[in-house]
């Protein structure tokens, strides 16, 4: 094949599939098809276009994740319209759930308890300062802005402060999925990477707990008749505990059988992820019907616990992770491209000045927290400087939690939801870039440590040959 064609293969490929989809999605045949048939085509299109966009963004030294997200935003319903139609997106979301559990399993598998124990103090100190500085900082800043210069019309003062507090809690929620995908992409390894992963996972669990507490508190403060529901908090603790235990058992069972599986391990991992996600929903539903209480097992937490047990309590951790890595790229592409499809650009357009301010303030507070926490836990200077930037990413969990505000407070809840979606959308775009920069600057990525350059040089020599 012509070397010039091969060199520009990404461009040719992207132009070809986008051109084809643009033409075909306008035809009568396409509009007459079932959403399922459209979803298969959409899935294939997202996979290829995401991959190609990822390769193109990599050329300009940006993370491939930005390309995957970009494909979703560009070709999604709000811009290009090549992936559109509610039914088609619902069909694609089914795959999204599988991807999320898969990524959670990977995150768990990356948590080496031995290393974490060594870094325990650093993680605890950083998490503590992130909570102590970021949540109050965002609450005060947002409350002040909404009370004064950019007053939120139609909201009582108490409601504004509650909104600010809820968004403050939400702002500490990072995205472990993005972190792990980027660490895999850059092959980052080292103390800073472990610190970032440890802090990210801790915050991911903490944000769920703290948000539930804040939501309950806000409810009782705004409506004193409701009162603080202690049972609700107990229920939450039970849900988290049961999720972790079930994850541990499932992970142990899978880990003990990994060596018996050969070529089929990848298929088994995918079946495992679907099974966990469905079994969690089924069990939750069963408990609700039988006992009449709200009960929600977290598939993501179960998978995280399972991955951690496989890595730390069985001997098959390395082989398991190797297989996970082999099949991870298509899953990451689909997950982030669908995330891009679902970014609410209208919300961003409506609230962009305050959203930009929120993002900037959050970034500043994260940076300050990282510096203070890092200094106290005696991390190297580069870690102190870059820890905050590596926690900017936000994704699925934050979106889910923000939507709960609207459900819990139907009156004024829509305003914070719109703002939160806009901020999360911005963080999804900015976060991976900053995280890659942080990992590069810490000197723990393959490229930075010199191996990348060597590999690149060998590749170029091979191409010339």
């Amino acid at each position, binding site marked *: 094949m012509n070397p010039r064609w091969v060199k520009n293969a990404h461009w040719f490929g992207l132009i070809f599939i986008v051109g084809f989809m643009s033409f075909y999605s306008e035809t009568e045949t396409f509009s007459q098809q079932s959403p399922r048939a459209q979803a*298969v085509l959409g899935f294939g299109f997202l*996979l*290829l276009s995401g991959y190609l966009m990822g390769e193109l963004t990599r050329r300009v030294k940006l993370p491939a994740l930005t390309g995957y997200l970009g494909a979703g935003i560009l070709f999604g319903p709000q811009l290009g319209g090549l992936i559109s139609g509610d039914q088609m997106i619902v069909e694609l979301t089914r795959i999204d759930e599988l991807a999320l559990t898969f990524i959670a399993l990977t995150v768990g598998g990356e948590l080496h308890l031995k290393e974490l124990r060594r870094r325990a103090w650093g993680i605890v100190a950083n998490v503590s300062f992130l909570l102590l500085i970021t949540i109050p900082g965002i609450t005060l800043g947002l409350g002040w802005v909404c009370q004064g210069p950019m007053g939120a019309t139609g909201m009582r003062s108490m409601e504004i402060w509650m909104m600010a507090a809820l968004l403050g809690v939400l702002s500490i929620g990072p995205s472990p999925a993005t972190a792990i995908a980027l660490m895999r992409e850059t092959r980052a390894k080292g103390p800073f990477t472990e610190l970032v992963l440890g802090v990210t996972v801790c915050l991911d669990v903490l944000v769920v707990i703290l948000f539930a507490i804040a939501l309950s508190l806000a409810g009782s403060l705004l409506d004193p008749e409701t009162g603080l529901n202690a049972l609700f908090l107990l229920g939450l603790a039970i849900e988290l505990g049961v999720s972790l235990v079930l994850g541990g058992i499932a992970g142990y069972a899978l880990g003990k059988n990994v060596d018996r599986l050969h070529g*089929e391990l990848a298929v088994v991992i995918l079946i495992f992820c679907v099974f966990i996600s469905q079994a969690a929903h089924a069990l939750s539903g069963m408990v609700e019907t039988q006992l009449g209480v709200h009960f929600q097992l977290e598939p993501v937490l179960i998978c995280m616990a399972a991955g951690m047990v496989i890595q730390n309590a069985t001997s098959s951790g390395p082989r398991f992770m190797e297989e996970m890595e082999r099949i991870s790229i298509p899953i990451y592409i689909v997950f982030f491209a669908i995330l891009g499809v679902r970014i609410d650009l209208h919300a961003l357009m409506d609230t962009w000045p305050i959203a930009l301010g929120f993002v900037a303030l959050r970034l500043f507070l994260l940076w300050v927290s990282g510096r203070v926490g890092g200094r106290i836990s005696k991390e190297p200077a580069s870690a102190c400087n870059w820890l905050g930037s590596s926690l900017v990413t936000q994704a699925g969990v934050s979106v889910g939690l923000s939507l709960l505000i609207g459900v819990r407070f139907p009156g004024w809840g829509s305003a914070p939801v719109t703002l939160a979606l806009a901020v999360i959308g911005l963080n999804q775009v900015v976060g991976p870039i900053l995280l890659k920069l942080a990992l590069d600057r810490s000197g723990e990525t393959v490229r930075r440590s010199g191996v990348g350059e060597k590999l690149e040089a060998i*590749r170029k020599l091979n191409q010339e040959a």
Partner: protein
Amino acid sequence: MRILLSLILILALAFLGHRWPSQLGEGPHKRIARFFGQGVGLIAIGIALGPLGLNLIDQEILSVLTPLKVLTLAWVGLLFGLQFDRAVMGPGPPKRLIGLFLLEGLGSGWVTALFCLPWIMGVIGGGDGIRENGSVGWLPVIGGLYFTISALAGCSSYYESSDAEIRRATRKWPLRPFFHYAAAGDQLVALLLLWAVAAFGTPTGGAGGGWVWISLPLFLGVAAGFLIALLSSRRVGRQDRLTIAMGGVLLVSGVAMNMNLPVLLVSTIAGIVIANASPGSSKLSEELLPAERPLFLVMLLLIGTSWRPGQWGIALGLALTYTVGRVLAKFGFAWITGSRIGHRPSELGMGLLFQGAFALAVLIDSSWFLHPEWADTVSTALLLGILMSDALGAASFTRLSGQWLASEGMMPPDENATSIQEEAAL
């Protein structure tokens, strides 16, 4: 929820079907394990799970699982097409042999279909619905069916024994490459005939669209193949290759599903283009190959679950006619071909009887073209025909290879005889 659990059930069964025969194949549960791993066993399990059995997988779930079936066809087609790499085929059979294999596949298919013609004209063609309401007219529908049966009957596969020891021993069998080429030729003929079916238009697609339906698979297959070839021509890692291959397979499946095109054909064309345009095609095959068998097993289960018997009497009659006609046609053409290339016609005929999973894939792919009025009956007849041919083919193939193994002293004649009986029984 139910849908995903059904999907898990199907994947888990396919996985067990993949693992058990090799694990239990040599133990005391040999017979059960082999039965489970064979096509008939999985189709039977599919029927038991489907609407005709326990209804664990109902019509709604089946419609959701359709993409999986299409994906399997695309996967199989791509892998099949990837075999036709000119560079690899160079030292293969001489051109004369290729011509003979193509002639054999085409001829035996046509003769078998000719045997079935009385059934097609007399019983199926007599349906008032087709005469009066057929959207593409009576002749194209009958012609389409004739070509479909030809495509299926011409198709043959190389039989791999489920006994690991026999499989290992027959790797050095001199006839092995010969039968492999013959099967590849027959399968290619089957796809070409299926393509010709498109010329008659789909029963619901309207008349006059023949040339469009012929050119679309070619265009899409070439375009998708060229795209995948272009992307995999660069030096890419394993993960990238898997992503490109999966993306390509999904894109091809999606387009073919949307346009009601034969997926197997489109993806085979794509595979042939990749094999000849991309230097990394062999690595692409390596990435796709491990999933082929599990996907085949899923397809067999889905054939069982979505099976509707139609009119039993007609189906059984047509299936018997198909099998007898096919045996006679294969032996007849083996006699013509064998005498020209210095092979014993009986050997050649025995080796070409087995149809295998590829024929089932062709059957699924051709179901797009069957008229809804008699689609169930014809599908049942052809399914039974393929299964009967497989039983005959497996037995004759095992006997043939067994004779060689015995002559080479690799297996005592008694043990050989037992194996043959067991294989034939299954």
